[in-house]
């Protein structure tokens, strides 16, 4: 019956889209919106959402699936969803990385090589939004879904079906994004700033908005699920002071997902209304206010960077004690710091708007609030340094990734200060200095943190170990290549190289060519990575229960964990980081 209702609704939507949109008064934009909703419904039914919904209505337990096909279906096991998220993140990362290489090739020297300026902006916009999706889902969605229930000793997430739904909303969003260049392209970056996004009738822009809102639903559902899971499903004995730091970081990120995402959805819905129904929210001739868009958008989109970075902090803070064989330094303080960052993240958004013409008096509080964030971030660094202090390090590949992440994020964090200060930001706004800054935090921080976690938990997720030599090679190539690409960008930005532009003066050529060559090194690291995963999945060394001799709960069950996670429900009797001096 669920399928019947779904296909009926889809049919009605398609009819209204076809009749009202193409023939009648609604127009092409509305037809596009309705047709997408119909397609989304049908897609969710096809992958098995309708069946799961019916099982819910009838009060049946979700069915247990086996074999490789479960990874391509609406499977409710959190471990399957975690793997789906991780694989999706890596695939999208490779797509976004290819787009970045295309841009870097275009930028190898001055003048236009093979892209028109508008094509360059489309490639840039797609690179931006796909990488935003990657950074949002890789650690929080992929590793979080797999690891968090294991770490707290739970059987699964609180809402397994909702979990599957939040994953399956992503593929349609990504397909929409990747099809937009063929339907008119995007010219507004990943931010869809109004009124640029409300003007122009290309379908590509509309698809971007729909994709963003769809991914937003996915993010809200994921956030609700994580917080409910950690609140109510911890194993007996796991009080708040025994929750592993990675789980803390996921909770912090999930709070932002819950409290921020719906606001950005509001701004994108308003743009969609402006495009489809001729409302005038962002048309200042007819009572609208263009700055409103930026306020709503950045209210979410600044905290969104903490959805990306907090789980990465959590991952490296989880990893460092294992390979330093020492307790995590200042555990309680750093858990508090993660929550403090979460709280502060909601009152800093207007530092993106120092040049926007907003009310002058707002600049000071937003500047001060932004700088306050460096205090809890400093606490994270304190915990890192305290944990490493006088430790005998085991330099396995996850540890190398974690140390590389710390080094990168230090640069990313420090270069954020001149951007938080309104006077210096006036000079640096919209230049490549900002581009370099956020690549050091998001790529150098969030993505390196993801790779650290990926290498740390790969044995748990698959039961096999990665090839260490290849893993270390990849880490070295990516670290050196990445720094070589982006450190020169600070200098170029400070000398006036602007974002979103395909061309530049000839005197920049040597530096730009150097960055382009370095980008190829980053690209080659992705090839090493793919090869390593491929051979390790086929013939990697068996990992056993606990290859890294870690103490958290996920290592107290076979790799990969069986359905239901633990043979006997675990009871927690000690602290998560009790590494003695003898270890």
């Amino acid at each position: 019956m669920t399928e019947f209702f779904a296909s009926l609704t889809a049919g009605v939507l398609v009819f209204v889209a076809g009749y009202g949109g193409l023939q009648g008064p609604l127009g092409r934009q509305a037809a596009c919106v309705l047709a997408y909703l119909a397609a989304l419904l049908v897609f969710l039914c096809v992958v098995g959402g309708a069946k799961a919904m019916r099982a819910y209505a009838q009060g049946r337990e979700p069915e247990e699936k086996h074999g490789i096909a479960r990874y391509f279906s609406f499977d409710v096991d959190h471990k399957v969803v975690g793997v789906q998220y991780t694989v999706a993140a890596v695939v999208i990362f490779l797509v976004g990385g290819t787009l970045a290489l295309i841009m870097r090739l275009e930028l190898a020297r001055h003048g236009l090589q093979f892209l028109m300026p508008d094509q360059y902006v489309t490639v840039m916009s797609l690179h931006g939004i796909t990488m935003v999706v990657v950074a949002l889902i890789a650690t929080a969605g992929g590793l979080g879904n797999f690891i968090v229930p294991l770490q707290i000793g739970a059987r699964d997430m609180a809402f397994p079906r909702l979990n599957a739904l939040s994953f399956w909303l992503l593929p349609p969003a990504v397909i929409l994004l990747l099809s937009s260049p063929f339907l008119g392209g995007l010219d507004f970056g990943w931010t869809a700033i109004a009124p640029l996004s409300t003007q122009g009738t290309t379908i590509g822009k509309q698809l971007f908005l729909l994709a963003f809102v769809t991914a937003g639903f996915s993010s809200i559902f994921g956030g609700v699920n994580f917080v409910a899971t950690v609140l109510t499903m911890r194993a007996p004995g796991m009080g708040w002071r025994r929750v592993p730091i990675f789980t803390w970081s996921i909770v912090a990120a999930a709070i932002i997902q819950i409290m921020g995402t719906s606001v950005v959805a509001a701004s994108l819905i308003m743009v969609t209304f402006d495009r489809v129904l001729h409302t005038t929210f962002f048309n200042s001739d007819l009572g609208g206010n263009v700055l409103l868009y930026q306020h709503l958008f950045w209210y979410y989109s600044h905290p969104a960077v903490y959805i990306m970075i907090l789980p990465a902090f959590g991952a490296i803070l989880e990893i460092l004690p294992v390979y330093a064989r020492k307790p995590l330094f200042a555990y309680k303080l750093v858990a508090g710091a993660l929550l403090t960052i979460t709280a502060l993240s909601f009152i800093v958004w207007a530092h993106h708007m120092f040049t926007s013409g907003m009310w002058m008096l707002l600049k000071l509080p937003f500047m001060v609030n932004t700088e306050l964030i460096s205090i809890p971030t400093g606490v994270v660094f304190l915990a890192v340094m305290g944990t490493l202090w006088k430790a005998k390090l085991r330099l396995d590949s996850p540890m190398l990734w974690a140390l590389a992440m710390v080094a990168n994020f230090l640069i990313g964090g420090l270069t954020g200060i001149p951007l938080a200060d309104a006077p210096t930001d006036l000079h640096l706004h919209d230049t490549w200095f900002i581009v370099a800054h956020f690549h050091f935090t998001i790529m150098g921080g969030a993505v390196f943190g993801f790779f650290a976690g990926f290498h740390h938990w790969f044995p748990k997720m698959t039961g096999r170990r990665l090839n260490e030599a290849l893993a270390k090679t990849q880490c070295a190539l990516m670290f050196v290549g990445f720094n070589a690409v982006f450190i020169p960008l600070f200098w170029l930005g400070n000398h006036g190289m602007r974002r979103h532009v395909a061309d530049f003066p000839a005197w920049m050529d040597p530096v730009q060519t150097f960055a382009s060559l370095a980008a190829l090194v980053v690209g080659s690291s992705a090839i090493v990575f793919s090869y390593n995963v491929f051979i390790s999945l086929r013939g990697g060394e068996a990992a056993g229960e606990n290859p890294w001799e870690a103490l958290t709960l996920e290592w107290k069950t076979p790799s990969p964990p069986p359905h239901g996670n633990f043979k006997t429900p675990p009871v927690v009797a000690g602290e998560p980081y009790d590494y003695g001096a003898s270890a």
Partner: protein
Amino acid sequence: MQAAITMNADWREDEGGRVGLWLFILSEILLFGAFLASYVGTRLGNPDCALGVAAWPEAGHLPGLTMAALNTLILLTSSYTMVRAISRAERGDRAGFRANMIATVVLGLGFLVVKSAEYALKISHGYYPGSELAKANAGLSIFLSYYYMLTILHGLHIVAGLIWNGVAYYASADAPMPSVARRAEYAGLYWHFVDVVWVFLFPLLYLI
């Protein structure tokens, strides 16, 4: 640390659902909060539509106030039947639950019918975004923008609530009563939330 060991016994097995639903409602509050803050901010900051400005359509000047008042009554009544449905389900009265739930669904559908009639009336008078009337008057244009967006989104939430209620009703035919009661409670939480949103929308859009 001994005290910490029993802490999770505080959570019953079904508690996750209630927590999750409240978190989702928190997210929804921020969605409507963003819209309402934008609406209030627009009215405060914009010379075209501040209170008392001639261009701004005051309260009852637009057709449809009576219908909106009727809709308020309908939704408040549906909240009452929802409360009855939940309490019947908790007492184990299957028939009583089903009767009250049907009444809630019918009232929700009634709300949508009245709302459609109100849209039709407004559109027939030329009160819609992009109309000649709206293009000539900035205050009217921005008011209609907010009016249609807020009421359409609220309408979609009503539809979602109706589906939720429908599932709870459908499942109550043969499910054990404790599970019916739990579903009723969740559906009820969401339905009350949707009603409360209307309680904010009605004065903001029609009275002030």
